[in-house]
Structures are given as C-alpha cells and as structure tokens.
C-alpha cells in the first residue's frame, strides 16, 4: 500500500495522454537543413502551409507564412513546393 502522496495516486489507472506539442520532444533538433523564407519573394500563396506535414507553418494572408523552428524537422517539402522559390534550405551545422 502506498501513501496518499504517492505518485501512483496521481496518475490515471491506465495511461491517458493529452494533446500537446512536442510529444516526441523538440523535433527541430532532428533537422540538418533549415527552411528560410525570403518574404520579398513570397507571394503568400499558402502552399507551404498546405503541404507542411507537421503543422509547423502558420499562415495569414497579411503576414504570410511563419515557421516554428522548435519543431520543424526540415523535410524540405515547403521549399520544394514553393512556386516562387522563396524558401531556401540552409545547412545548419
């Protein structure tokens, strides 16, 4: 029998997880190439937002796309699909 302050009293009887960013940690550390947006070239079409598998790109019509580098894994899809060639993959290390 454990005391009332035991950690075992505070966890659910079966593992329940809550939706949160970073369920696999700060996945930006996986990256070797970093997408960098040239907002001068960007036409604000939103395709990078559309195709980002991870929802790490947020987008508004006014400000265009913004990348969350804490989690961006650097897959390069955004740069590949950008019709204006406004995203460059830059080596990080």
């Amino acid at each position, binding site marked *: 029998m454990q005391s009332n302050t035991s*950690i075992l009293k505070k966890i659910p009887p079966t593992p329940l997880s809550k939706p949160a960013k970073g369920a696999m940690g700060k996945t930006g550390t996986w990256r070797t190439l970093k997408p960098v947006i040239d907002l001068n070239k960007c036409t604000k079409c939103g395709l990078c937002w559309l195709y980002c598998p991870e929802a790490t790109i947020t987008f508004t019509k006014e400000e265009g796309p913004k990348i969350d580098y804490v989690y961006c894994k650097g897959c390069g899809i955004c740069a590949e699909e950008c019709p204006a060639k406004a995203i460059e993959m830059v080596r990080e290390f």
Partner: protein
Amino acid sequence: MSKIIITTGNYSAAYAAKAAKVDVVAAYPITPQTSIIEKISEFIERGEMKAEYIRVESEHSAMAACIGASVAGARAFTATSAHGLTLMHEMLHWASATRAPIVMAVVNRAMGPPWNIWSDHVDSLSQRDTGWMQFYAESNQEIFDTIIQAYRVAEDPEVKMPAMICSDAFILSHTSQPLEVLSEEEVEDFLPPYEPPFDITDVDHPVTHGNIVWPEPRGDASVGYMEFRYLMHQALLNAKRKIKEVTKEFEKKFGRNHGDLIEKYKVDDAEVAIVSMGALAAQAKYVVDLMREEGYRVGAIKLRVFRPFPDEEIREVAKRLKALVVADRNISYGYKGISATEIESALYQLEKRPIILNFIMGIGGRDVKPEDQRKMIEAAFNIIETGQLEKEAEWYGLVR
C-alpha cells in the same frame, strides 16, 4: 419482483446479463456457449432487453468491440468457450490493461485437436495471467448471482478490471436447475450505474489512450510502463477485499452466499479436504456428507475465485488438515494440475503443511462420479495412515 424458473446454466447467464441491464453485447457463436447469446438475441428482438447487440465475425472482434464499448461508456457483456476464448487471448490482455470492467461468461470446454466439446478447464486457466478475475460456478444460480456480483466488483473504482464467470460445459450449460431470477429493479439497487474507466467520447477533453509509455520515467512522464502494471496488480488485490464485501452484501440482500474467494464445507474438524472447481464442487459436498455418515473426518473446499488467488484463505484452512486432495479438471503438460501448483505455492509459507494429492481427472468431459471423488478422498486417508505418497499427481481413471 424476482421469480423462480427452471432453466439451463446458459440461460441463467443470459438472464443475468439482462438483469444487469448491459448496454452492449458483442459475441460470436461457439458450442457450448451459443445458447447464451441466442437467448440474449431473443430478449433483444422481443424488446425485453434494451441493449446494442454486435454480431461480430470472431471472438477476437467480440472482445475488441467490448473494449471499445466499455471506454465509450457502455456496460459490456460477452460469452465464449475454448477456442473462442483462446482466440481472444490478446484482447484479454488489452481489456485488463485498458481497465475495462467487462464481464464475460465462459463455458469451459476442451481444446482441440481432436474436437471435443465437453468440459475441461484448460481453456480459462490458460488465461490466468491476463489480469482477468476468474470465478468458477457450481450451479446455475451461482452463474446468475456471480455475474451480477462480478459487475459490482469489476466496476468498483478501486478495481476497474474485467471478470470471467466460468461454468462447466453441458454439466451446467445445458442442464436445467431451479433459478431465482432477480428483477432488474432488485439488481439496480445492488449495482450502481456504469462509470467507465475513462470516456473516449468526451471530445471536449480529448485523451489518447495507450500511446507509448517508456520503460523509465522520461520527459514529463512521472512514471514508466511498470507503474501501470503495478496498478493492475494492486487492483486485483483490491478485488479480493471487494469480492468479500460484495458477497456479504449480496447475501444480506438476496439471502444467498456461494462463498467468497473460496467456499468451505465441513472443514472445521476435518483431517482431509477435497478441493474442486466448478460443478464438481457441488458433487464433492454430497460425497463429504456420505463419507461423514461413515465417520470420515472429511470436508470440501470450493475454489470459487482463481484470480485473484485466495492464498491466505487456503492457508487458513489447510494448516489444520493432514491431507488435501486437489482435483484438477486440467493439466499443465509436463508438470501437474494447475490449481494444485497454485495451492502448493500458497502453502509453502506454512511451517506444517498437509500432504497434497493431486488428481488429474475429468479431462475432455470424462465423467467423474461421486464414487470417483470418494476414491480420491480414501486414497488421502490411506496415505495419512501409511505416510507414503507415491505420486504427487495421479491421472485418475486413465485407461492403461
């Protein structure tokens, strides 16, 4: 109001599911269980029972569906036998680790090959380590009463673990006996409304159940996999206490007590006791009465609950005995009877242990008559006199 009818063990299970007002039934036919789900289908199609019945395409799916229903807020029921139960094996682990308080009627049947549909306890005993509570009933009334009691124990906040209620193929499943059917109102008084271990349909508070848990505490996880397994173990230990409480309360309310973890019969002054599971436990009491008239100091123990195992309870009785006859309708190939090994392990703690005679008997439905049980008991008295135990486990009635 309750009513008394004459009916089979299988129909008794069906009446119990109805009385417990289960919300979802998911089941697949298999002899000798089938008439349980046939009767439930009849209740539902007649509009006498308000439950969703999922006519699944396998027992594996039956248990998966019960798990889904259970965490979506429904009291779930299923029934199976032998190959159906062993096909479910993976899902039995899944159910207990989900902490889904599903109740299942198991009609014990031999495993093939060769095909054999008669009673044998290997099917359910092979599920020993799945985290399910296991009850073994000796009569149709006990099947009914235990299903009701099992829901109460399984759904208890301190337990939240599934339970199977086992009964012998044909000996009970297809044999009619008098049965007092408690009304839904009476049962409702005893069994509070179902509360799921968590509600997977609560979209305002979404949770993910069962994604990866690391071996060690890691990141913001304060515990690892092992701690969740400990909680399951503790829940079954809590169930020991709950089963005692619930059987007492049931007796107070309905006037019947089939024993809690074990049932003791005339063991107080006995030198020898015979341990049985299921229907043979009823016959053992009859044999004890006959032998007592002849002056034998003999008693009987019914192993009513196999998990959680009644180790203390058996020790308490066994320490006063000279010999214990353990009659197993099962075999663990390469060793001995399954309940005998469990009992021996429990008694190891005692300073003065009784001699244990293990009989492997009744396999694949082979008949075990009162005179057979009597011979087993007589053998124990002989050994007490001679002090010579030749074989730890004897295949009783084997043609050689």
